[in-house]
Each structure stands twice: as structure tokens, then as C-alpha cells.
């Protein structure tokens, strides 16, 4: 097996145990490699075993705890910190892909300075600091501005202190997803500018008004965990979830009912529900509701029907359901942030308020940091730069030029622009100096999420490049300019941080010695104590609240730019894992698309894949044309596009020539200071131009094959859970035939039960997947990429269907035609580890075979590449290496230095011509068996977690031994909802699916 980039190559760089120049061939003769010993043994590290470091994920503002798996001094995988209150050991796809930010081949490797020719050239750190110091001498006071992303925590404090020391207070915070509408509503109603936390686990009725709470909204992993508990089927009970939004996004897949109101009118529905509750007195309404009573009473269900097109009856029913259970209503999602989004958020908060949910399922944490910054602030800064009032601009952790093209031209009017970006993104390109910050995994830092607590970050490895932590740079600058009084006298940022944590220790009333507290915080990833909730009550300003609906400007189609579940606001775009991660809805990779409803598509005369021009009143994208994706889950007359693609800089993966959704949005802040993600556009199709979508679904519907099955709550309660919905045509195997088959099978197996490796007792590894829990978030997919060294293959190969995703989420549209409601069925599909695996007997060389412990083994080095196994796999979960993905210079090279550093040394990197597939993370199974053997104990249920299971925020995946009747997986496999995909083929899969349960509205 050729191993251009092999396990050993990995071991080399830090070389605890072994290493090597790239060894070319390997079946027998090995090239001499080099072993480089450590000078001093690193703490806690044993070569060949992983060390885990606790730190905090900074890919979004949720503040998930991380356990970083480090092998031989290199971070190789990001996993959730089981002790974290936010994510409890789970981690989303974006969070896991943080590793590819660390090892991004397009990282800025050293300080850069823009020359007279506009090209960047490397300079030394000393020179770079000197340049700034020189300029700081000339500029002072408010002419110094610091633009950053959400840095709630010590860094924020440092920036403020540093600016103050230099006489400035201009710290502008800008996050693309700033939730300005939600915050404005909280400000207006309750007088607090902060973001709420939702306690889903207590709720049994969830209604979302355009909030993508399972995708990007506030804290998606936390939301998914809670929602999974609230909504999954459990002993005859489950919650109900209604989604109100013109577009059915990933979150809405789980919705039991999807209501598509007129665009921008969700607020009216929410307020009318509040109206009904107040009218009927069914809610646990606080007494001070009278302040807003006129507002609520003004919105009758009938009025709401007028505004939204949702019938009054439905609104009445929803209101009844809302108070019949513990409930939660969500609003203010970025994908629904139109000009009247503050109205929506106000209405939703009022709905929660009248139902008595505040403090119950909707909480404002006492220790939540105050929110800061908005789109309006950014635009104000742009204005100020245009007026020549900014002499020195620092940019850290935000990339406004990408989604606000006017900001770039404004920057031209600022003096010295200094970026701390790790990547040459659009904003860094406009700067004079780029002083690359350490990646969050290389940093000392802390973070305070809206859900409360103080989270620590520690460097998990040496810096990959010649980068420096921005905190250190600021301290150096302060020393150089002599403005280093107070906390700025700290020797380095770590000391500054520790000083800050002495305060935190006091705040959390910890009475141990500081070092004990510090070390314990490091081990746990921070301190989280339930600081309690803010007791919110209606502020005086609540009486002035107004409710409006969004009014389209001019004719045309309503355009929605929604946050992409894979790209986020765009910062995921330079990570190949995320680019290749199929969008949960469209299943499109490596580019953007325009979602169009079937009726609208017919009007436009387009089908999926047709290339269209989209133009708004201010913008028309000339770069290329945008492919259409016909989607039944979007309201007629509405088109939608994911944010995050269409970068012009930001690295080879990001700058992929597709369109940027935010460009089609109107400039300028809305009344509440945010940006409207709605606009009116026209779509033109000249005819004839078409591209093959880089889509990972062959067909969008399951053609009655019963792949992803569902049942209804009512059927389960009535004891008809075994009924196959969506599998009308699959003829079941008659029972007596099945008996004969089973008997015959037993007889066959007797042959090998006492032979060779098959003799004796063995586990039968198996998995169960609860479709009622799966939200299609793709976290498992990225976990698999990370754990099993899966290559990313790029757009062209995905168009040929050659993606290597060992686990994929199959997404099937149901209904949506002939007046039936549109629904989506999901099914995570990985190797089913069939007992009677069709792939095995056809392999001529036993590369595919059955292990004694029930795995469907795939021996890569034995594989000749006949691909017969893949033909014969009914589930199509075998993936072939068409190219040498790990080889430099290959057409589809997946691991440009240093991306190869992420490779898991426990898993063989496959060469070209070899079939590969999921083996239930056999390296983890063997690893756990080794550990148990070393410790002299037996494995117990739960000792082994597959990568997908470990990260699943919904806890949908359970792995274990089927031969152990007490294991979780055994019990789940005998559930009334259990079924095998294509079970009629008698493959006897090891993966059991539990049917999705739809909690239909009571008639």
C-alpha cells in the first residue's frame, strides 16, 4: 500500500516515537526512517496514546467545552467536553472542523506587511510592532479603533483597558450573527440587552418563529441536546414541535408541523397566540401583563390571519397546545431577521411571557455577559472612517468586508489598518499589516457564553506557524508606547488572564488557593456554576412596543439569506470538511445555490441545476450563475440562499467562485440596528444553462422503499408502531419463509462456530439509530472525517458522486405534492455491518470479510480494487479511492501541509485503488480492548463509543454488544420502533433504526 502520507509520517514532526520522511512504498521493504527523541519528556504524554486537553470552542459564540485529543504533541481531533454544561461531550460539525482552522494550509504563517505594490510580504514581529508603535505615536485618543468579534471575556477587557490606556474607547464589536432583533426586543420589553437561554428539556411544546435553533441559533448543540430530550419518543410520550417560517430549514425537519406564513408575518401569529392565551386565561400570565395588554389584544387571530395567511383556527389550536404543555417559543433567528424582526421577537417574547415561560423555559442567566455590538455600530465605524476619523484600525476575529462590501472602501480612508486575522480574508486584504493571531487551540484565553459561566482556553500544542497571540501583541505594544499601567503591566497575556481569573475566583466564591482553582479550571475547561437567572419583568418601555410586519419593497421574489448550517456566517468556508459537508436540506456541497419552490420554479421555467441570474435593486451577481435547487419546503414566491459562500479571499477552499448571499441584501441597518436578511429580488433564466449539482443525494425521494421509516405517536399509542409508513410497496417476507431462512442460516453458521478465530464467545458489535432524535445536523459526518482520515474530494468529484463520507445523512422529501404537507425523513447511513453481508462473499481476496465480533471487516492493504463489494452493497456505503488523495501532486489531493497533521495515526490512510468503509471505528474497539486488557478488566457497555455516537448532540446513536442482553443497544434493537433498512434482503444488519415518530396535530 502506497502511503505517501502515512501514520508514521505523522509521527515524525514531533517525533516522540517514530518518524519518517515520506515513505513511498510499503508492503515489505521500508525506507529507513528517522526517530527523533524528545529532549525533555512532555508532561502526561505517553507515546502511542492520546492525551486530552480541555479547552473551549471558539467557532461560534455558544462556548462549547472541548476535549482536544493530542497524539505525540499534535491535536488530531476535537471532541466535546463531557463536563461542559453547554455541550456535555457533544460537538457540532463546525466546532469539530475547528481543527482544520488550526491546520489550514492558507493560514498566515508570519507577520505580513502590505507593500507599495499592494502585495503582502513577510516582516519580522519586531518590525511589525515597530510600525504600529510609530503610528500610535502620531495618532491618539478616539482616532484609534478596535474592531473585534464577540470576545466576551478577558480579551474584551484587555482591549478596553488597552484602548483606555491609549485614550480611546472605540471598541466596536461586530458579529454577522449579532441577533440584534432579539436583543432589541429584550431591551424594549425587559430592559436587558442580552441573549436568552432556552431550557428545552423541560418543554413539551416547542414553537419556533423562524429561529434555526438546531443549526446556528445561539447555542445549537445545547439546543439540540435539550430538544432531543423534549421531542424524542420516550415511553409513549413525546413533545410536539411547530415551526413557523416561510422556509423549512434543517431545524424544521424535526417539526411535526410546518407552517409557512407570508414572509415577515410570523410576529402576527405569535402575538395572536398570546392574544388567545390572554383572552382564555389559560397561561400562567404574570400580573404586570397589563402594560402590554393593549398591544396583545390588538392582534386577534383573525387579524393575524389577514397578515400572515395562517388560519385563525390554526392559531387558536396552537395557542391551546402552547398552554396545554410546558412550552417554549423561539424567535429572532438570523434567517428571519427582516426589517420587522424586532416585532417578531417582541411578539414571541410576549407569547412566552403570557404563557409564563420566562424563568421556566426561557432564562436570562445572571452571569451572562452583556451583549455588545451590532451591524449599526459597524456601519457607524464605516462612516467614521469615511469621515477620516480613524487613524489606526485594529481588526480581530471578524471579517466585515466579506459581507459588507462597502466596508472595504471605507477602510481605505482609515490610517493604519492592522489585522490580527489568521487567514488572508477579505478584511485582512484591506489592511496594511497582518499580525496573525494564534489559533484558539494555541491560545491562552477565556470566554463567557450567553448561557453563563467562565470558560478557559489553553494551548493544546505548540504553535504551528510563527504566530503570536494578539493579547501578547497588545501588551507588547502597550510596553513599547509606555502606556502599560495597571493590568497592562502583565508580562504576557497568560499573566493578564490569570490576574483576571483571580477576580473570577472571587466572583464564583471559590475559596481554594488560586493555583488549585486555576488548575482545576484548566482541567475542567472553566468554571460553571449555576449563577441563577435574572428575574425579568416588563420594563416601562414595553408599553411602547409596536408590532409591524415586513413589507416587501417592490415587485419580485422575496429573498432570504439564511445562516448556513455548515458554513455558519462564512467563517467555515475555508475548511474542506465543511465545504464537503452536504447541506442538511439541499445536500449540496462546495458552493451556494438558490432554493426555489416547485411552483415558482415552474413559473420561472427552471429545474434543479439550472443556472440563473439573481439581482436585487442594488446588486447583480456577475461572477457566474447560480444553480437552482427546487425545494418543496419553501413558500411559493420566496427564494432562499445560504450565507457563507462566495468568498473572494480567505483561502483556496473558500474562494470557490460561487455567490455570496449577503451581497443581495440591502445595505444599512434596520430600525433595531441589525441587518435585514430579507430582500426583494428578480430571478432571470436565459434557458439552457445547467450544471450537475454537487449533491450527495441521487434521488430526493425514497420511492416508497421504506429506507427512512416513520410512524405517528397516535399509532404507537394504539400499538401500531410496526406499521410501515413510506414503505407501501416493499413486500414483506412472509413469516414462515423467514423461519425457514433462519433455520437454514443457523445450520450454515454451525460450520464455523468452532473454527479458528470464530471459536468461542464473541461480542456482536451493533448500533442503533433513533430517527426520532436525529436532526440531520451532520456532526457525526464530520466526526467520521476526523476520526477515520477521510479525504475531501472537491466539487468536481462530488458531482461524480465520489465523496468519501463513510456516514451520510440521507434526506428524503415526503409529500409536498398534491396538497400533502411537505415533510422530510432523515436517515444516517453508515455500513450496516450485515451478518449476511452481500459484500463479503464476492470479494475474491477476503479483503471484505466477517470478523468474529460481528464486524464487516475491510482490510485495506489486502484490497485489490475490484469494486464488486460496492456493487453488491444494497446500502451503498462502500467508498472507493479513485485517486491518491493523500499524495502531493495528485489531482484530488486532500491534505496539503499542514492539513495532514490532523490525520489519526490509529487509522491507515488509504491509497488509490482501495475500497474503504465504516467499520464501527474498529480502531476504537481495538483500542478499548487493549486498554481493558492492560488494566486486566472486562469491557463494559459504554466503554466503546464510535466517533459518530460520541459527538451526536441528539444522542441518536447507541453502540454496543448485541450479545449482551443488558446493553443499551440490545434493548433498543428490540424496541417496537426498531427496523432494518431493506430488511427483506435478509442481510441481517447490525444497525437497527428506530422509526421517526411524527406527533401529528390532533384533529
Amino acid at each position: 500500500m502506497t502511503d505517501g502520507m502515512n501514520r508514521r509520517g505523522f509521527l515524525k514532526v514531533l517525533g516522540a516515537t517514530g518518524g519518517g520522511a515520506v515513505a513511498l512504498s510499503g508492503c515489505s521493504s521500508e525506507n529507513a526512517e528517522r526517530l527523533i527523541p524528545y529532549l525533555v519528556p512532555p508532561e502526561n504524554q505517553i507515546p502511542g496514546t492520546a492525551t486530552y486537553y480541555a479547552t473551549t470552542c471558539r467557532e461560534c459564540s455558544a462556548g462549547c467545552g472541548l476535549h482536544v485529543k493530542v497524539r505525540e504533541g499534535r491535536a488530531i481531533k476535537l471532541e466535546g467536553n463531557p463536563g461542559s454544561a453547554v455541550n456535555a461531550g457533544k460537538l457540532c460539525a463546525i466546532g469539530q472542523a475547528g481543527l482544520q482552522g488550526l491546520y489550514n494550509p492558507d493560514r498566515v504563517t508570519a507577520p505580513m506587511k502590505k507593500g507599495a505594490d499592494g502585495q503582502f510580504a513577510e516582516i519580522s514581529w519586531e518590525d511589525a510592532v515597530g510600525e504600529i508603535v510609530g503610528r500610535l505615536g502620531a495618532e491618539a485618543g478616539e482616532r484609534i479603533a478596535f474592531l473585534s468579534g464577540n470576545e466576551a471575556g478577558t480579551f474584551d477587557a484587555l482591549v478596553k483597558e488597552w484602548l483606555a490606556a491609549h485614550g480611546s474607547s472605540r471598541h466596536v464589536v461586530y458579529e454577522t450573527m449579532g441577533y440584534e432583533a432579539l436583543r432589541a426586543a429584550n431591551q424594549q420589553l425587559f430592559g436587558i440587552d442580552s441573549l436568552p437561554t432556552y431550557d428545552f428539556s423541560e418543554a413539551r411544546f416547542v414553537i419556533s418563529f423562524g429561529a434555526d435553533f438546531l443549526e446556528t441559533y445561539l447555542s445549537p448543540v445545547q439546543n439540540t441536546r435539550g430538544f432531543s430530550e423534549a421531542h424524542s419518543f420516550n415511553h409513549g410520550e413525546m413533545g410536539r414541535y411547530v415551526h413557523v417560517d416561510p422556509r423549512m430549514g434543517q431545524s424544521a425537519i424535526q417539526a411535526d408541523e410546518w407552517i409557512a406564513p407570508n414572509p415577515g408575518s410570523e410576529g402576527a401569529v405569535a402575538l395572536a397566540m398570546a392574544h388567545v392565551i390572554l383572552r382564555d386565561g389559560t397561561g400562567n400570565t404574570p400580573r404586570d401583563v397589563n402594560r402590554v395588554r393593549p398591544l396583545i389584544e390588538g392582534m386577534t387571530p383573525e387579524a393575524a390571519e389577514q397578515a400572515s395567511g395562517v388560519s385563525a383556527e390554526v392559531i387558536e389550536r396552537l395557542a391551546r397546545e402552547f398552554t396545554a404543555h410546558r412550552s417554549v417559543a423561539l424567535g429572532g433567528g438570523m434567517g428571519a431577521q427582516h426589517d420587522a424582526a424586532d416585532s417578531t421577537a417582541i411578539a414571541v417574547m410576549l407569547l412566552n411571557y403570557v404563557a409564563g415561560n420566562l424563568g421556566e423555559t426561557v432564562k436570562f442567566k445572571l452571569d451572562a455577559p452583556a451583549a455588545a455590538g451590532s451591524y449599526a455600530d459597524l456601519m457607524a465605524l464605516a462612516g467614521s472612517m469615511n469621515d477620516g476619523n480613524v487613524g489606526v484600525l485594529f481588526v480581530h476575529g471578524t471579517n466585515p468586508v466579506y459581507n459588507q462590501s462597502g466596508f472595504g472602501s471605507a477602510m481605505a480612508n482609515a490610517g493604519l489598518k492592522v489585522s490580527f486575522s489568521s487567514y488572508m480574508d477579505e478584511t485582512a486584504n484591506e489592511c496594511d499589516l497582518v499580525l496573525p493571531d494564534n489559533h484558539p487551540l494555541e491560545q491562552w484565553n477565556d470566554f463567557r457564553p450567553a448561557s453563563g459561566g467562565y470558560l478557559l482556553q489553553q494551548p493544546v500544542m505548540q504553535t504551528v506557524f510563527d504566530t503570536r497571540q494578539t493579547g501578547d501583541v497588545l501588551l507588547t505594544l502597550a510596553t513599547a508606547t509606555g502606556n502599560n499601567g495597571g493590568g497592562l503591566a502583565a508580562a504576557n497575556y497568560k499573566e493578564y488572564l490569570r490576574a483576571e481569573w483571580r477576580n473570577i475566583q472571587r466572583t464564583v466564591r471559590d475559596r481554594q488557593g488560586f493555583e488549585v482553582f486555576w488548575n482545576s479550571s484548566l482541567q475542567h475547561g472553566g468554571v460553571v456554576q449555576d449563577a441563577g437567572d435574572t428575574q425579568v419583568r416588563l420594563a416601562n418601555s414595553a408599553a411602547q412596543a409596536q408590532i409591524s410586519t415586513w413589507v416587501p419593497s417592490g415587485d419580485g421574489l422575496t429573498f432570504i439569506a439564511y445562516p448556513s448550517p455548515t458554513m455558519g456566517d462564512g467563517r467555515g468556508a475555508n475548511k474542506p470538511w465543511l465545504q464537503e459537508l452536504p447541506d442538511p436540506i439541499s445536500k449540496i456541497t462546495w458552493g451556494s445555490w438558490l432554493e426555489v419552490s416547485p411552483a415558482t420554479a415552474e413559473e420561472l421555467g427552471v429545474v434543479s441545476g439550472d443556472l440563473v441570474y439573481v439581482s436585487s435593486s442594488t446588486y447583480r451577481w456577475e461572477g457566474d450563475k447560480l444553480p437552482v435547487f427546487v425545494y418543496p419546503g419553501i413558500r411559493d414566491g420566496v427564494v432562499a440562499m445560504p450565507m457563507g459562500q462566495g468568498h473572494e479571499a480567505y483561502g483556496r477552499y473558500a474562494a470557490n467562485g460561487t455567490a455570496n448571499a449577503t451581497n443581495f441584501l440591502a445595505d444599512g441597518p434596520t430600525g433595531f440596528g441589525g441587518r435585514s436578511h430579507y430582500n426583494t429580488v428578480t430571478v432571470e433564466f436565459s434557458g439552457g444553462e445547467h450544471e450537475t449539482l454537487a449533491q450527495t443525494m441521487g434521488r430526493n425521494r425514497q420511492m416508497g422503499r421504506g429506507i427512512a421509516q416513520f410512524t405517528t405517536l397516535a399509532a404507537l399509542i394504539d400499538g401500531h408502531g410496526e406499521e410501515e409508513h413510506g414503505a407501501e410497496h416493499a413486500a414483506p417476507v412472509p413469516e414462515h419463509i423467514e423461519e425457514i431462512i433462519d433455520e437454514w442460516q443457523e445450520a450454515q453458521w454451525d460450520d464455523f462456530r468452532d473454527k479458528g478465530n470464530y471459536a468461542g464467545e464473541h461480542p456482536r458489535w451493533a448500533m442503533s439509530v433513533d430517527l426520532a432524535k436525529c436532526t440531520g445536523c451532520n456532526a457525526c459526518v464530520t466526526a467520521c472525517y476526523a476520526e477515520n482520515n477521510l479525504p475531501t474530494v472537491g466539487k468536481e468529484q462530488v458531482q461524480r458522486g465520489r465523496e468519501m463520507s463513510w456516514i451520510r445523512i440521507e434526506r428524503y422529501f415526503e409529500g409536498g405534492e398534491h396538497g400533502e404537507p411537505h415533510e422530510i425523513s432523515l436517515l444516517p447511513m453508515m455500513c450496516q455491518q450485515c451478518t449476511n453481508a452481500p459484500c463479503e462473499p464476492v470479494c475474491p481476496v477476503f479483503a471484505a470479510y466477517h470478523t468474529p465480533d460481528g464486524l464487516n471487516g475491510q482490510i485495506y492493504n489486502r484490497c485489490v480494487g475490484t469494486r464488486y463489494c460496492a456493487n453488491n452493497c444494497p446500502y451503498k456505503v462502500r467508498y472507493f479511492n479513485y485517486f491518491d488523495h493523500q499524495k502531493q501532486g495528485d489531482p484530488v489531493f486532500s491534505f496539503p501541509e499542514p492539513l495532514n497533521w490532523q490525520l489519526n495515526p490509529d487509522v491507515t490512510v488509504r491509497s488509490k485503488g482501495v475500497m474503504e468503509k465504516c467499520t464501527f471505528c474498529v480502531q476504537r474497539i481495538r483500542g478499548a480492548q487493549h486498554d481493558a486488557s492492560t488494566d486486566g478488566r472486562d469491557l463494559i457497555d459504554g466503554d466503546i463509543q464510535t466517533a459518530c455516537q460520541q459527538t451526536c448532540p441528539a444522542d441518536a446513536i447507541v453502540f454496543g454488544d448485541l450479545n449482551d442482553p443488558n446493553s443499551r443497544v440490545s434493548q433498543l434493537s428490540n424496541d417496537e420502533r426498531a427496523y432494518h433498512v431493506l430488511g427483506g434482503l435478509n442481510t441481517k444488519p447490525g444497525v437497527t433504526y428506530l422509526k421517526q415518530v411524527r406527533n401529528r396535530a390532533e384533529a
Partner: protein
Amino acid sequence: MATSVQTERTEPNTYATITRDVFNTIGNPGRGYYVLLGIVLCGLAIGGFSLLWQIRWGLGVAGYTPPVFWGVYITTFVFWVGIAHSGTLISAILFLFRSAWRTAVYRTAEAMTVFAVMTAGLFPLIHVGRLWYAYWLIPYPNQRQLWVNFKSPLVWDLFAISTYLTVSTTFLIVGLIPDIASFRDKATGWRKKLYSITSLGWRGTDQQWRHYTRAYLYLAALATPLVLSVHSVVSWDFAMSIVPGWHATIFAPYFVAGAIYSGVAMVITLLVPMRKIFKIEHIITVDHFENLSKLLLLTGMIVGYAYFVEYFIAWYSGNPFERASFWNRAFGEYWWATWTMILCNGALPWLLWYKKLRRSIPMLFVLSLFVNLGMWFERFVIIVVSLSFEYSPAAMGHYTPTWVEWGIMLGSFAWFFMWLLLFAKNFPMVSIAEVKEIIPLPRKKEVHQ
């Protein structure tokens, strides 16, 4: 047809004329031959370059689009194996049936068999991901202490194809020995030396003929079940799987009939120009073509019936996957391939019910080309179209071959014709001894028995 009849001589065939006429087919070739050989070598170079390109970069340069993991290579593999079959049918099965007319055409057919198997045998190698490890399919003792999986139809295939190649080559060589001896006794110069060696000391003694005829009979008797088994085994490459459209009991006879059908067509394709170029129209006559076209008609009817049965069973079984697969064949993305196949193989052979058409050589030539095309598409439909529409709707894809695959396919034709050209100019393309066997040697007295 009048034109073809005109070219036939009226002079009766005698032992002497046969030896002479066949011997005249060899000898120093003209410019046309070298032009043909040049074209063939160019094709081979294109194929070779494509293959090297594929080995260098990986199978990704071919058009494989999962779930279509097998494409043009396996299609062409089955095509060539199929071509091979009629050769053995004519040389062995018809021999057992004492079918006298076969003698004139069997050598061409048998040579075609060997070269077609030689061509076919390349494709499993070309198509595997790691060509350099393909020898792992052979059960040889190795330090890894591993054996091969005899349950895999691919291993059966390995055994079947290599046995077939060995046996048909043996059969060809055994058949050639007396003819080469004839050539030896006529040739001069280096050819004499060549034939002296390759005739293996054949002199046509009574003892030699005694053992020879027996051995030939047994070889034919062994080749007969072999030829039936080889394409059955090839068909089991598909039928043993669970792919809808593949998993069918009809596959073995269906494939064997199809193989003979395509092979006979290829024999016609080859014989028509050959008899003209070699001026042996009096040895390979229109009667021979009529007999071949009857074979074509018979197997064509079987193939057409198989098409019908496939669809019928897909419907009759009630299996939704089978039904969907066959619906997709006829009306899905590859409808054109299916209808090409049905037109060429299912409809066109009906023309052969007309004797006039059976005896029209230009007509047969054109028809044989259509049948070749149709049979290639039959395999394409069975392999690619079935795979593209399997069980999992999430994994359905559309496969389009790339230049590499077309290049290699072109190379395979070049490879085949290269051997045929080299053979035709150096060895008898008509069996001298066997043609002699069926015409009377002069007698002094007329015998009435």
C-alpha cells in the same frame, strides 16, 4: 445476392487447390496490410497511453460515478468473452454434431476465440484499482498464509477465463498442426523454418491421425461444456449479486445465447472482408454464411426471448426493486441504450427469417455490425443501467465514460485485430486438413455403397 455469387469460382475444390489457395493467403503482405497494421498499432498506442494514464493517476480518470462501480471495462470484458464463444461453438460443438460446413469457417472462428479471450482477459486487470496486486486472486502459497475466496464469482471467473484461454489455445494449436505441416512442405526460407518448428514434426501418419482424431474429439468434448460454463460463470458475476436486474436465474443461458449471438456476428464481420481479400470465396461460400445466419437467427431469438422474460419476471415477481430497475432501463436516463439494444438484438434478427436476406452477404455484414453494437449495449445496459438504479435512492448516479475508457476500448479492438492480422498472414485462416476431410479424394473406381 448476385454480386457475391459472381465472385465465386466454378472450379471444384480439390485437395491440391485447397492447399494452394490457403497457402496463398500467407506470404509477403501488400501495402494495404501494412496500412491496416499501422492503424491497429496506432489504436494500440492510444489504448496503452490511456491505460498508463489511468495507472498513473488512479481509476478516477475513468468515468465511474457511484453507484456505478463497473462501467465500460466490464462491459467490454463481457463483450469480448461473448465474442469468443461462437468460435468454440463452431469449432467444438458443431464438430461434435458432425456439422460438415463448419470446417471452412472454424479456424477463423477459433483464432477469433483465442484473440478475443486474450483481449477479454485484459479487462479485469485494467478495471481493478490496484492492477499490480491482481495476482493476489491466484491461490498460490505465500508468506502471508492467505488463500483466496473461492466463493467469489470473480475467482470463478479467473478460473473459467484462464481455463478457457488455455483450452481454446490448445484447441487452436492442435488444429493448426497438420495445416502448418502442409505449409511447411510448401514454404521456403524463414517461413519453412518457422513451420518446421511449429508443426511439431507432424507428418500425417496413420498413428498420428489415430491419436490426433481421438484427442481432437476429446478436446471438443471438453470444450463444449467449457464454453457453456465460461459465459455462465461470467453471467454469475452478475447473477450471484443482489443487484436488481442482475440477480436472475435466467442469466446463464441468456448470456450463453447472447455470447454466441454476438460471436457469430463477429465471425461474419471478420469473414466477409477476409474471404474477399484472401480470394477464398469458393472455400467459404454463401452457404456457409447462410448457416451462420441461421445460427444468428436462432440465438437472436433466444436473446429476444430472454429480454422478454426479464421484463416479464420483473413484473411477475412483484419485487418493487426489480420492477423499478426495469422501468428505469426502458424509460430512465439510459433509455437510448436499452432501445439500441432491443432494436439491434431483439428486432433486427427477425429479418433473417427471409432466406434472401440470409444469403445476402452485404446485408449480413451490415446486420452483423448492428448485432455487435447491440450486444455491447446489452452488456452496458445490464451492467451500468442496473447499477445506476439500485436499492438506495440516495445513492443513484449517472455514469458517463471518459476518454480514458474509450481509449482503452479502442486499444482493445486494436489489440484483437493486431493478433488477427499477424495470425492471418502467417498461419492458415482456413483449416486445410478439415476442409479436405469433407471433400472426396480422387478415386480410381467409383464405389457405390
